[in-house]
């Protein structure tokens, strides 16, 4: 069945960088603790840019050299949990900023949103009703972080990544999972509390198990072997999660891509931001098999394999 291929990528992170040392001035934490526990050195934090500002910049960045204009888009799908409004959704705000006129919708599966959004896009391509879809992961997580809570404040960052999809056969296989649970990861939406809370050990366990199971499933579904995969782009939640999953899967560490050191955990934005970084560095070659995987609140998880 026909699916899509990635025509171009883009990303954007706010200029304002907050280092671990800056955080340790306002919280009871240290640079060493943060680096050891989560593998983060700095994060980009928006001062005044909204989620749609960042999303639109990543989108423009992706469209720039593609030859595809905003008016050529058949759909915009945004993966986010931090849109600036409940309504309009983020995708409509991006549509407005780009000057596009296509349908626009959001997907909310917390940190797994980008995988869910790609799979949603694949469905429209399979039906043959679209030629270009822009899928964007964008988050302003600094708006849902309690800056007095040292266990979460050090983890998250802001940013956006975008992929422009066109018709093709490069989406090889996917898997999506959900297991409803509001104990382990939660962002309430109440006037008195809208901050993210997480149980660290349970999240770690869920994440490692999800990465291992989802990657194994999706590699098998694609009719491939682990050694056929050139790069794995996992959601950048915590370097320790990625390293432990890598050990359990016994796949060489150099195939697991990471940039959490510079951006922190940007939820739905982490995978497209990292994909853009790899693309722009010239690392990806045509025909490379790339596995993406994500996990997070919901609880939700998912993975897919794309041919570059």
């Amino acid at each position, binding site marked *: 069945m026909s699916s899509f291929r990635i025509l171009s990528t883009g990303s954007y992170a706010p200029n304002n960088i907050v280092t671990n040392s800056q955080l340790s001035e306002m919280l009871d934490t240290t640079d060493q603790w943060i680096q*050891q*526990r989560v593998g983060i050195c700095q994060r980009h934090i928006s001062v005044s840019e909204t989620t749609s500002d960042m999303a639109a910049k990543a989108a423009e960045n992706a469209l720039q050299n593609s030859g595809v204009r905003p008016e050529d888009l058949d759909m915009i799908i945004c993966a986010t949990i931090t849109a600036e409004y409940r309504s309009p959704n983020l995708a409509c705000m991006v549509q407005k900023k780009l000057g596009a006129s296509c349908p626009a919708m959001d997907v909310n599966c917390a940190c797994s949103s980008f995988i869910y959004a790609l799979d949603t896009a694949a469905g429209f391509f399979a039906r043959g009703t679209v030629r270009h879809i822009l899928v964007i992961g964008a988050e302003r997580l600094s708006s849902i972080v309690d800056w007095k809570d040292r266990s979460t404040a050090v983890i998250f960052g802001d940013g956006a990544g975008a992929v422009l999809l066109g018709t093709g056969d490069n989406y090889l296989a996917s898997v999506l999972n959900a297991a409803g649970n509001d104990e382990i990861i939660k962002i309430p939406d109440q006037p008195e509390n809208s901050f993210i809370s997480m*149980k*660290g*050990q*349970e999240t*770690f*366990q869920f994440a*490692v*198990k999800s990465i291992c199971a989802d990657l194994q499933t999706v590699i098998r579904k694609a009719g491939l072997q682990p050694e056929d995969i050139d790069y794995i782009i996992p959601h950048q939640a915590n370097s*320790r999660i990625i390293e*432990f999953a890598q050990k359990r899967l016994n796949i060489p560490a150099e195939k697991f891509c990471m940039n959490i050191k510079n951006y922190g955990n940007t939820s739905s934005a982490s995978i497209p931001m990292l994909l853009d970084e790899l693309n722009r560095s010239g690392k990806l070659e045509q025909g490379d098999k790339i596995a993406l995987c994500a996990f997070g609140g919901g609880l939700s998880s998912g993975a897919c394999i794309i041919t570059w």
Partner: protein
Amino acid sequence: MIFEKLRDLIVEHTDADPESVRPSTQFIDLGIDSLDTVEMIMQLEEELGVELEFDEKVTTVGELVNLIEKRLRELKK
């Protein structure tokens, strides 16, 4: 039995001298943090073929051994 298995895992994780790992040993003194503990629990789950989920905080080797043994007894029932 669980103590010996856990001690082997700790040695594998930290290169600690097996003699220095006792039930009263604090994880923090071995340089083991809460995520290392989860890693070891997950490795034990695989070895023992059981799910060992619990959210109690443990600070010593003996406390973790007791929790795992308690969980194993519950699973047997």
